[in-house]
C-alpha cells in the first residue's frame, strides 16, 4: 500500500519537503524522520556541538598535560619556579599565594595552593565529571528499565512493591540521600555479594548518583509500559505463546527506546550537577582526584584572592549542563514531538 505524503507528516510540525515522491519517503524509518526534525532545530544542534567540543577538550587532557603543561593533574610543584617574561617566578609564593592565570603555556589558568596546574586539573576534572555523568546515566537507565518493565508487564503485587520502593527513594531529597550514601560509603566502600567497590573509587559516586535518580526515570517509563501492555500487539504476542521476557525485550522495549534515549541525555546533565554538588560537599569524588565539583570546593577557600579557581570550573559546568539540556529537549522533540517527558524532582 502506498501511503500519501500528507499522512506521514506530524500535526503541528513543518511539512516535509514538497515535491518529494511518496515512494522515496515510504521506506524511511522513524530514526531518519527524527533526524530530519532535529536538523531543523538549530539551537539544539549548536548545543550538541558545544557538548561535543567540551568532550573533545576534556579528552585532550593527556596531550595538554604531556606536551604543554608537562605535569599531571595531581602533581604538586609548591617550591618550583617557572620562567615568565624571562623572570623566574614562584609557582606558590612563600606566603602561600599561587601564581595566577596568564598567557604562558604552563599554568595557563594559574596554579592552586599545592602548585598544581589548574588548566590540567580542569581538563582531567571534566573527564571525571562527564564520565560520572555518562556512567551514572547508564546505571540509572538500566535499573529504571528493569524496574519499569517488571512493574509494567506483571502489574499486580510486583508493581505495587516496586512502586512503593520507588516512592520511598523518591521521598528523600536527592542531595541529602546522595550525601548520606557518599559519607557512609567513603571509608568502607560498597560490598554487595561479589560486588566490592573501594571507598575512594570513582564508582562510588557513580553508583550513588545512578541509584538516587532511578525513581525519576522508572516511574514515567513504567507508565508508558502500562499503556503499551494493553495494546493489541502485546495480546497478539501472548496469544502466539511468547514468554514474558521475550515480550518485554522484543515487543515493549523497542517501543520505549526513544523515551529512554531522551531521558538518558537529560539524565547526564542532572548527574553532572549532582556530582558537582556531592564533590563540593566532600561526598563525591575523593581528593586528590579532580572533578569540576572538587575544583570548586578547593577554589572556594580562595574565592577572595583567586576567584578564577571557582569561576572557571563553574562556567564549565554551566556550559555542559546547558548544552546537554537544550540538546536533550531538541532530541525529545525530534524523537517524539507529542511527548511531554521531563525529569522532575
Amino acid at each position: 500500500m502506498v501511503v500519501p505524503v500528507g499522512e506521514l507528516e506530524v500535526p503541528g510540525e513543518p511539512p516535509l519537503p514538497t515535491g518529494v515522491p511518496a515512494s522515496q519517503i515510504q521506506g524511511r524509518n522513524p530514526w531518519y524522520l527524527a533526524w530530519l526534525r532535529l536538523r531543523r532545530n538549530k539551537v539544539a544542534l549548536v548545543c550538541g556541538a558545544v557538548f561535543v567540543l567540551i568532550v573533545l577538550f576534556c579528552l585532550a587532557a593527556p596531550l595538554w598535560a604531556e606536551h604543554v603543561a608537562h605535569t599531571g593533574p595531581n602533581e604538586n610543584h609548591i617550591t618550583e619556579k617557572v620562567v615568565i617574561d624571562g623572570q623566574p617566578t614562584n609557582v606558590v609564593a612563600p606566603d602561600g599565594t599561587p601564581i595566577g592565570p596568564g598567557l604562558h603555556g604552563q599554568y595557563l589558568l594559574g596554579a592552586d595552593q599545592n602548585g598544581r596546574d589548574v588548566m590540567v586539573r580542569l581538563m582531567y576534572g571534566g573527564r571525571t565529571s562527564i564520565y560520572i555523568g555518562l556512567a551514572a546515566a547508564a546505571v540509572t537507565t538500566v535499573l529504571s528499565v528493569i524496574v519499569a518493565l517488571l512493574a509494567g508487564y506483571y502489574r499486580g503485587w510486583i508493581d505495587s512493591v516496586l512502586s512503593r520502593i520507588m516512592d520511598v527513594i523518591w521521598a528523600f531529597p536527592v542531595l541529602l540521600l546522595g550525601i548520606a550514601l557518599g559519607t557512609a560509603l567513603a571509608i568502607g566502600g560498597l560490598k554487595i555479594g561479589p560486588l566490592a567497590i573501594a571507598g575512594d573509587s570513582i564508582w562510588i559516586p557513580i553508583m550513588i548518583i545512578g541509584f538516587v535518580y532511578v525513581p525519576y526515570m522508572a516511574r514515567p517509563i513504567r507508565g508508558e509500559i502500562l499503556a503499551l501492555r494493553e495494546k493489541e500487539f502485546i495480546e497478539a504476542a501472548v496469544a502466539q505463546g511468547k514468554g514474558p521476557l521475550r515480550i518485554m525485550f522484543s515487543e515493549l522495549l523497542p517501543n520505549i527506546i526513544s523515551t529512554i534515549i531522551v531521558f538518558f541525555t537529560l539524565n547526564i546533565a542532572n548527574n553532572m550537577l549532582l556530582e558537582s554538588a556531592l564533590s563540593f560537599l566532600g561526598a563525591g569524588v575523593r581528593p586528590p582526584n579532580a572533578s569540576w565539583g572538587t575544583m570548586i570546593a578547593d577554589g572556594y577557600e580562595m574565592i577572595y584572592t583567586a576567584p578564577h579557581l571557582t569561576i572557571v570550573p563553574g562556567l564549565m559546568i554551566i556550559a555542559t549542563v546547558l548544552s546537554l539540556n537544550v540538546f536533550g529537549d531538541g532530541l525529545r522533540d525530534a524523537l517524539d514531538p507529542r511527548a511531554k517527558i521531563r525529569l522532575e524532582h
Partner: protein
Amino acid sequence: MNTLRKVVAIVCITPLAAFGVAACGSDKGGGGGGGGGGGDINVALTSFPDYIDPQLSYTLEGWEVLWNVYTPLLTYKHAKGKEGTQVVPALAEKMPDISPDGKTYKLKLRQNMKYSDGTPIKASDFAYGIQRLFKTDSGGSVFFNGIVGAKDYADGKANTISGIKTDDNTGDITIELAEANGTFENVLGLMFAAPVPPSTPLDKDATNNPPPSSGPFMISKVEAPRTLTMERNPNFKTVKDAGADEVVDASVDKITVTENKNNSAQVTDIEQNKVDFMVDPPASDRLQEVKTRYGNRFRMEDSINTYFFWMNTQKPPFNDLKVRQAINYAVDPEALNRIFGGRMHPTQQVLPPGMPGYSEYKLFPGPDMNKAKQLIAEANPADRNITVWTNDEPDRKRIGEYYHDLLTQLGFNATLKVIAGDVYFTTIGNESTPDLDTGFGDWFQDFPHPDDFFRPLLHGDSILPTNSNNWSRVNIPANNAKQDELLTKLIGDGGVEQQYADLDKAYMEQAVWAPYGNERFTTFLSERMDFDKSYHHLLFNQDYSSFAIK
C-alpha cells in the same frame, strides 16, 4: 520616601538597641565573683572539640574550651608567655607536699566549694575522675599509669585505685606513685585530673550531658558537633570564696562556640564583627589581607607544637626503617610552610623550639628525592598499597594531598582518606580502624616538659585500643626504659635536658615520624573585643577568661 523613612528609623534605633543590649550585659555580669565586663560573644572554630568531657578531651579545640570549665586540684597560671607554664594551686589549698622519695603527694581540697549545679565538690570526686580516665580508655590515662594500683584497676582486678586515698570530711587527698615522677605536678594541672561528681557516667563519654563545672564557665548547651554554649557558673563564687585566687573569673557572660568548616567565611565574619574570635588561624590566602588591614586586632602567637607525618611502624611497608628514612628525605618542610602561608618553622625532630631538651639537629638533609628513591629501591617493599589519612581542615587537606603526591612519586599506590576534623584523631587512634598506614599528625604541648612529647606519642604503653596517640605504633624497649628513667628525675637535674635531646635523636634515628614544622598561631578578634586584654596561653591557646568587650 517610605524607604528613606525606614533607613532613618534603622539608623536611629540601632545605636539605642546596641546601648540597650550593652546595658543588659552589664547588669548580668558578676555572677561568678566579680569578673566584671559582661556581654555575649561568639567564637568560631573549624573542628568541633573531640569530647566535651574533661577526662576524654584531648584536642586543642577541646582544651581551649574546657580549661575555664573544669578546674583540677592544680592548674596553670593564667598568664601569657613562659609565666603561664607555672603550676599553681587551684581547687587544692596549696601545692602538694611531696615525700622525700618523690612517691607520695599530699593535697588538701578547699572547703565549701560547689559545682555549677550546686553539688558540693568532694575529695573523692578527684579519685572518681581518675577512675573515669581508665574506664573510658582515655588517651590521658597514660599520664596516671604510675599511680599505685592503677593498672589493677584498669585491668578490672580492683574496684578502686589503691594508690589514691581521699577523705571527704577533711578534704585530704593522698596519691601514692610506684616510682617518682618529675612531671606529676604538671599532670595534676591537666583537665584529665579535674574532679567530677559521681553522677557523671563512669565508663561513658559525657559529651551530650557534660558534668557540672568547677570553673568560671559552665557548659549550658551542647549540640555536638555543631555548637555549644558556655555561660557563667553561678556557683563559681564558692570556688573564689574558698581562696582559689589563681582560677580567674570570666569577663563575659556567655560564649557561643560554633563550628564553621569555611575558614574564609570565619575571617569575613570577624572582619564584619559577626563573630568575635576564630580558634584557627586565617587560611593562608587571607593571612596577608588580615595582617595589613586589621593589624590593630590581629597578631601572631608563639605556640609549642610539632607537625609530622606518622607511619605505622608495625605494618608493611613502614615497618622497614629504610622506607621511613626515605620519607624523611623526601618531605620538603619549605613546601609545607607555603601551604601554611609562611607560618611554619621547619624542623626534623620530635621536640619543638621552646621545649626543654630541644637541641636543633638534622639527620636527613634535603629534600633529596634521589636519596629517597634509592632507599625505597633498596627496601623494595612488597606492599606498596598504602592509605594516607588526613582531615578536612583547609591546610590539613592540602598537606594530605602533598603527601599523597610525594608517596606516588616514590612508587607507592597511595589512597588519600580525608575525614572530618572533629573525628579525625579518635578515628586514627582506634586500632580497629582499617588501613592505618600513615598520615597527618600534630602535637601541642600539654605541659612544659619533654616527656609530654614522648610518653603519649612514642611510648609502647601508649598503644591503646581506642584514643591512642601513638599513631606510629612505636614500641622501642630501650627508648621506653629511657623515658621511664628520665621521668623519675626533675628537668632541672644535671644532664636531664641533654638526655631528652639524645632521646629525641634516638627516635629520629629510627625515623618513627617525618616531622616537618612548628606552627605559629594567631589571635584575630572583632572590633568590639578588648584586644589588649585577651591573650594566648602557651598550653591552652586562647584564654577565654581573658575575653572582654570594650
